[in-house]
Every structure is written in structure tokens, then in C-alpha cells.
């Protein structure tokens, strides 16, 4: 199934009952376990198709609106098929609405945040999963506890800090507060607990490798699939992050979501331009989901089961 690439917690408990069932000679039981309940009937397909359409339609319609001219968008009934102006509208959004600069900024911000989150989460996740040290459980509880604190509550002091540092309206103001993620640490810990055999770490110790060496030559190769998934998920979040960038950046140096708000703020609303901007800002992530959809789905599902 899709969880294959990430042998994390999700699969582990599922396997044992199946083995036990076959031991009892219940072949039918085993097959049902493998099939996970029943086959889908026609009704299930219809309902899922409706849900898929509802999920995709707003984006499809973004494309439709971005490809027509302004007067056509504002007619009733609204257009349902793409028009001829897609590329000219995209080009206008890129130039006029600062979307070009915003895309490059978002690429930098999301790239740096995702890289640093993955690196630090793997380091800490490895320590929490396989190294023994005093206060390990207490510190892990602290990591989980920090997930419950919404970042929005800290914006006022954070804004003052950035003013002090001279980072207002600049990308470091957006990058630094999100360099690490508690969810990432927890995710990598779950993965490495399952995927990294204790014997490998021990063997490295016997060979006289120090911890950092073990991290680079033993942990990293094994952690790579989970790191890739964490990178993509963090990238999506950083690309789409709204509140703090909106507070600290302005239109001279925006990220994509900040630039999009400005598009809608004009008194004369150019609907096709707005939709072209929204489409442009979403395209990189959509492309990523189309290419790596399987990995992202399995990553989200692997991180799901927790106590």
C-alpha cells in the first residue's frame, strides 16, 4: 500500500494480528486483513468522485478565471471553460503584482526553513530515538508541549525584536523564528525508532566512531526517505505561512501570500489578475504534489498515529 515507503508506526501493529490469524488457520480472515475491510461499491466511488471534484474545482476555476478577461469573469452565468488569456494574465501578475519577486522570496524562505528544519529535526530525532541521556523523556515531553503553543501569540514581542535587530521587512525576520519545528522532531523520532536498528549504532560505537560520525554515515542514509517527506511538508507550510510574514513584511519585499493580499486590496478589483496571481503562487506546490503525491500522502499518514 502507499505506506510502504515509510515503515513507521502505522504499519507495525497492523501486521501482528494478520500473522496470528494465519496461525489459527483462518485464511479468509487473513485475506480480509490484507484487503482492509470490504471492496468499495459503486456508491463509495460516486461519493469519493464528488469529494475529489469539490477538492479540485476551486483550483480549476482559479485557472478558468485566470485565463479569461475581466468582463467575462463578472458575467452570469460564470465561465466554466478556460479562455485564451492565461499566459498574458500570468505574465501581468508576474510583472505588475510583484509576484515574480514574491515567488523568488518564497523559494528562498521555504527552502532555507525546510532544509534547517530537516537537519535539526533529524539530529534531535536521532538523539531522542537512539541515544541515552538524562532528562530525555522530560525533554521529549517539552517538545510535544511546544506543539500546543500557537505562534501567533508571540507576534508583538517578535515584531519588536525584529525592529531591534534591524530585520523588519527582511527575509531573515521570517526565516529565523521557524528554523525548527516540534512536529518535525517528533516525526523523525518516530521514524528512526522503527527504522534504525540499535545494532547498527552499537556497531558504529565498537568501530570507534564518534556520535557525529555515526549520525552522518549511519543515521542519515537510513533517515533519507523520511527526511525527503519532512522537507516537502515543511516547504508547503513555509510557502503558505501567512500571519507572521503579513505582519513583518511589506509590499517592497513580500512572500507569495503577502503579495496575494495586496492584489485583492485594490479598490478597482481586477479579478483575472487576482486569479492569475493565486494560480501562479500555487503552481509550484501543485507540481510538487503531482510528482511526489504518493510520498507526501504516506508521510502525513505516517506522522498521524500518536498517543
Amino acid at each position: 500500500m502507499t505506506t510502504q515507503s515509510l515503515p513507521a508506526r502505522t504499519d507495525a501493529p497492523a501486521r501482528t494480528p494478520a500473522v496470528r490469524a494465519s496461525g489459527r488457520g483462518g485464511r479468509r480472515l487473513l485475506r480480509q486483513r490484507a484487503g482492509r475491510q470490504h471492496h468499495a461499491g459503486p456508491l463509495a466511488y460516486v461519493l469519493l468522485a464528488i469529494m475529489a471534484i469539490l477538492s479540485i474545482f476551486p483550483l480549476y476555476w482559479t485557472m478558468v478565471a485566470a485565463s479569461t478577461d475581466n468582463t467575462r469573469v463578472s458575467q452570469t452565468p460564470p465561465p466554466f471553460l478556460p479562455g485564451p488569456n492565461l499566459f498574458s494574465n500570468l505574465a501581468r501578475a508576474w510583472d505588475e503584482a510583484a509576484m515574480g519577486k514574491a515567488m523568488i522570496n518564497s523559494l528562498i524562505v521555504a527552502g532555507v526553513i525546510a532544509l534547517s528544519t530537516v537537519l535539526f529535526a533529524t539530529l534531535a530525532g536521532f538523539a531522542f530515538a537512539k541515544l541515552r541521556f538524562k532528562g530525555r523523556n522530560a525533554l521529549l515531553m517539552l517538545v510535544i508541549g511546544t506543539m500546543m503553543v500557537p505562534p501567533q501569540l508571540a507576534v508583538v514581542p517578535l515584531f519588536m525584536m525584529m525592529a531591534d535587530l534591524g530585520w523588519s521587512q527582511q527575509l531573515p525576520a521570517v526565516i529565523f523564528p521557524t528554523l525548527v519545528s516540534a512536529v518535525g522532531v517528533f516525526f523523525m523520532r518516530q521514524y528512526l525508532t522503527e527504522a534504525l536498528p540499535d545494532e547498527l549504532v552499537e556497531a558504529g560505537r565498537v568501530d570507534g566512531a564518534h556520535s557525529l560520525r555515526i549520525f552522518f554515515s549511519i543515521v542519515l542514509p537510513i533517515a533519507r526517505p523520511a527526511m525527503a517527506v519532512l522537507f516537502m511538508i515543511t516547504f508547503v507550510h513555509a510557502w503558505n505561512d501567512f500571519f507572521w510574514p503579513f505582519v513583518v513584511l511589506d509590499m517592497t519585499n513580500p512572500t507569495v501570500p503577502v503579495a496575494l493580499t495586496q492584489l485583492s486590496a485594490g479598490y478597482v478589483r481586477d479579478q483575472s489578475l487576482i486569479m492569475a496571481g493565486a494560480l501562479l503562487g500555487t503552481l509550484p506546490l501543485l507540481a510538487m504534489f503531482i510528482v511526489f503525491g504518493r510520498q507526501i500522502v504516506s508521510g502525513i499518514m505516517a506522522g498521524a498515529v500518536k498517543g
Partner: protein
Amino acid sequence: MATSTTKPLTGGEPPRPSPGTSGGDAPRRRGALWHRLDIKGAPYAFVAPFFIIFAAFSFYPLIYTSWISLHDVELATLDVMEWVAFDNYVELWGDSRFWNALQNTITIGVISTVPQLLMALGMAHLLNYRMRASLFFRVASLVPYATSVAAAALVFTMIFERDFGMINWALGSVGIDPVDWEADKWPAQIAISTIVIWRWTGYNALLYLAAMQAIPADRYEAASLDGATRWQQFIHVTVPGIRSTIVFTIVLSTIGATQLFGEPLIFGQGPNGVTGGADNQYQTLGLLLYEEGWKNYQMGRSATVAWAMFMLLVLVFVVQRVVKRLRSRTS
């Protein structure tokens, strides 16, 4: 102390390799010391970056928020802080905009969270069937998650447009009068909730699906031997089986609901956005926080709103705990 276990390695001697020693076992001793330092210190060094950055950019600001909330601070002169004790809190308590924002945050939170999680549950159940194209359906359900708040809110603002929006056109075609989705309170809150529901239902469905797949098959087998229908199996096996995941999603959605900001801001189309409509009909606490700080330039009052949001969150979880305890006592 735990140090005693590693002592034999260095032969019980104080671990202080003097640079002048040229004895044959000095490098070995130095190596042993290095090894011990590595074993003891490396774990802390590995988890340190997370805690240092979290402390600097999350924990410290969070605490500092409460200190600022006891002062008057203007946006233009951030380093001038005037002590006013609890004045900001008293003013907030007497401010009808605060109670309005609190009410809107709660109602939008309920309208967006309850249907979202129920639909996600149904969707996960469907995705859990054995079927063709299951990967397509899963990726499709995640497409909204890949869309930013900003892009999603812009599209839905157009779909809910009063004069040429698709929803009013569809309503009109079945003979229902057009709804003013922005200016009227409840329609606006429903439209904003729709954006939240659209973005997060598929994501939650995948979390539920992962938990459902971990339920042992023999529980279903036992239930069907007892003559349970599929619906009864869903209620008595599936839902209890994924209980901890349901709690987890409720916690996440509740936190998200108290922080709601981008959806109402963009739905209000820029200039009106911060006030949450002409009559504040959909202003949330998040918007009020921003309005106080960055439109009225009162950072102290903004911090007070942030602290009130935090207390709201704490209150929700205390109530949830109490309800849970009462319920387990009665049953």
C-alpha cells in the same frame, strides 16, 4: 551519579591529560576522555538547536507578551514603554469589540470544525475501502492542503461574490434569492468557515485513514460474528479504534480556530478586512489583535488580546478535561 559507570575506562584517574605528557598511554587516555565527553555530551548537543531557537523566538516572546500587555507601547516608538498595570485588561473587558470578536471566533470555530471533522471521518471511511485509483483519491483530497490561505480565500471570495458569484448563480437557478455573503453576519461566517473546511477536511481524513488502517481486522470479524451491521461496526469498532487520533485532530482544529486570521482578512477584501466587515460581523480575535497593533498602533493592547487568546485556549482545554472526567464518572 551515572559518571561512575564510565569511570573504569579512564582507570579512575582524574581526566586531565596534561599537554606535556609523552607517555605511551596518553593518546589512549585522551581518546577515552573524548569518548566519554562524546557519549555524555553529544545527545544534548543534538537536541540543543531545537531548544535554543524555540526559546529565543517562541518561548521568550510568549512570556514577554504578558509583560508588554501591562504597558502602553506605540508602534512608532517601540522602545518607549509606559507602565499601566492592568489598564489594558480592564479596557479590553469593557470593550464591546472584544466580546464581539470572541463570539465570532467561537461561532466560526464551531461552524468550521464540527462539519469538517465529521466529513473527514466519512471520507476516511470511504478511502479505507479496497478500491481502484485509491492513490488518486488520496492525493486529490490533499490538493486543498497544498493551496495557501491567501489563494484559497481569494477564490472563495469570488465564488461567494454577491452579484456574479457562482454560489448565488446556482441558488438563483433553483429559485432562491441571492445572498449577500459579505455584508450579512451569518452568511459571512458560513462562507469563511467554508474556506477552512475546504482546506482541512482532506488532511484530517488522511490522519483518520492512517489510524483506521491500524485497527486489527479481528475486531471487525468479532463484530460481524455478533451480527453487527456495517453502520454498527463503524460506530462500535472504527470510531473507538481511532479515538486518540480524533482527540488529536480536535486539539489541532481548536488551536487553529482560535487563531483564525487569513481567511476573514482576505474575505473582507483588504481595506475592510482588518475590521472584519463594516459592522465587525466577522472580526475574529486574530483580526482584533492585528487591528489594535498595526492599525491603531497600540502594541500593548495588541499583546493583551494575544494573552486573552491564550487564556481562551487554556479555558477550552480545562472545560474539555472537566467534561471528559464528568462523563467517565457517570458512565
